[in-house]
């Protein structure tokens, strides 16, 4: 299967990519790892007139600490997020999510920026990045803006990115000591994408109480779902097994999942509870609880 014909540009710099994007507007699509876009083009689900390949643009790849955040270049491939020492030490939940995406070959090619920009409702990164309160740096010819995860993922395959913007970097706040992060996924047995998954950031006080928690659940709707009822049930409480179970039981409250060929809405709600519990337990353990 070949994609339909398109005009191809290999951008050599971010400036060049932005120029091309401005010139070709809605008719153009950026190409990063191509592991969402090329399959869609082969199936003719997408037929962009122009592709602007940013795969070889220098400076958009790699993980580094910048102040209180981890700055991850948009072109960093999943395997490099999963194996990064600093990610594994400080944000194990992010490494966990990166390491269960697709398969080894996909992780060698797909990029974190591509995954975020694509905003597949069954993708892993949007869920964990929402839990971790990541922010997204969007560059346009007229400047840079930063959008938080809660406002970045808008709908099915829809983000805050405008047609003339490139996502250049994802910034993840480094959690304070006494915090734990985790990701737990129920993958579809055939596709490997999520049926349901949960990402958490738990901040534990010395006393053993929960200072605050962010819990995001995937698979329940058009994008990552903030489990607000679960978060509220954890905040200020001692992080005992009973509190965790009771909080996780609220993980699907307020969501509106739909039946699909593989899983009914009820099953997804139930799995949301199970996977939220597992992720919270693991996050609390990592927070020293």
């Amino acid at each position, binding site marked *: *299967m*070949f*994609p*339909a*014909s*398109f*005009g*191809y540009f*290999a951008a050599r710099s971010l400036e060049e990519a932005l120029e091309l994007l401005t010139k070709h507007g809605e008719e153009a699509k950026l*190409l990063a790892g*191509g*592991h969402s876009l*090329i*399959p869609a083009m*082969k*199936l003719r689900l997408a037929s962009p*007139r122009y*592709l602007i*390949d940013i*795969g*070889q643009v220098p400076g958009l790849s790699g993980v580094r600490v910048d102040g209180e955040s981890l700055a991850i270049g948009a072109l960093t491939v999943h*395997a490099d997020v999963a194996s990064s020492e600093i990610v594994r030490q400080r944000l194990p939940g992010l490494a966990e999510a990166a390491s269960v995406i*697709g*398969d*080894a*070959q*996909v992780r*060698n*090619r797909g990029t974190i920026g591509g995954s975020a920009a694509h905003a597949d409702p069954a993708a892993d990164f949007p869920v964990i990045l929402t839990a971790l309160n990541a922010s997204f740096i969007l560059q346009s010819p007229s400047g840079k803006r930063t959008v938080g995860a809660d406002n970045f993922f808008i709908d099915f395959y829809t983000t805050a990115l405008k047609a003339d913007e490139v996502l250049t970097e994802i910034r993840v706040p480094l959690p304070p000591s006494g915090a734990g992060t985790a990701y737990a996924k129920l993958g579809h047995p055939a596709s*490997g994408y999520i049926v349901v998954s949960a990402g958490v950031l738990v901040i534990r006080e010395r006393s053993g109480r929960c200072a605050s928690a962010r819990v995001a659940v995937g698979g329940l709707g058009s994008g990552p779902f903030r489990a607000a009822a679960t978060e509220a049930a954890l905040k200020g409480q001692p992080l005992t097994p009973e509190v965790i179970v009771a909080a996780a039981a609220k993980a699907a409250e307020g969501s509106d999942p739909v039946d699909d060929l593989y899983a009914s809405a009820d099953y997804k709600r139930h799995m949301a509870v199970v996977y939220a519990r597992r992720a919270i337990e693991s996050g609390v353990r990592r927070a020293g609880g």
Partner: protein
Amino acid sequence: MDDSRTISVTVNGVKHRAEVEPRTLLVYFLREHLGLTGTHVGCDTSQCGACTIHLNGRAVKSCTILAVQANGAEITTIEGLAREGALHPVQEGFREKHGLQCGYCTPGMIMSAAYLLKTNPSPTEDEIKHALEGNLCRCTGYVNIVESIRWAAAKMMKGEE
């Protein structure tokens, strides 16, 4: 709009310059332009791993990459794994442990396994299985494939001593 592009790639140590249509998939470039038919097309939908090659040292699915994206890259295919006539230990392992039946998945399996052993020279059985998630085999039931890779890992570790 089908303006052809000149790309330059090094495949199995040999430099090639070629004209390709931008929509040409890397696997077809390797098979049809360069005649390297050892790399197979199984599903053509990014699932089966039969098309696995090494692009700049990393195992990837060449049915999901445009040839133009590989401009400037170093590629190794199954044909380039043997060195000076000596099979790669993973190739030997598949022979010794009967790691194939029809052989359709084999080039991709071997490329994935060779990449695994480069990054993790003594993998556990679970790590081998995890590393092969992107490679499907309809014949063997995988048991002998895992055995073949363990054989290769043991041989390579011995060689290091």
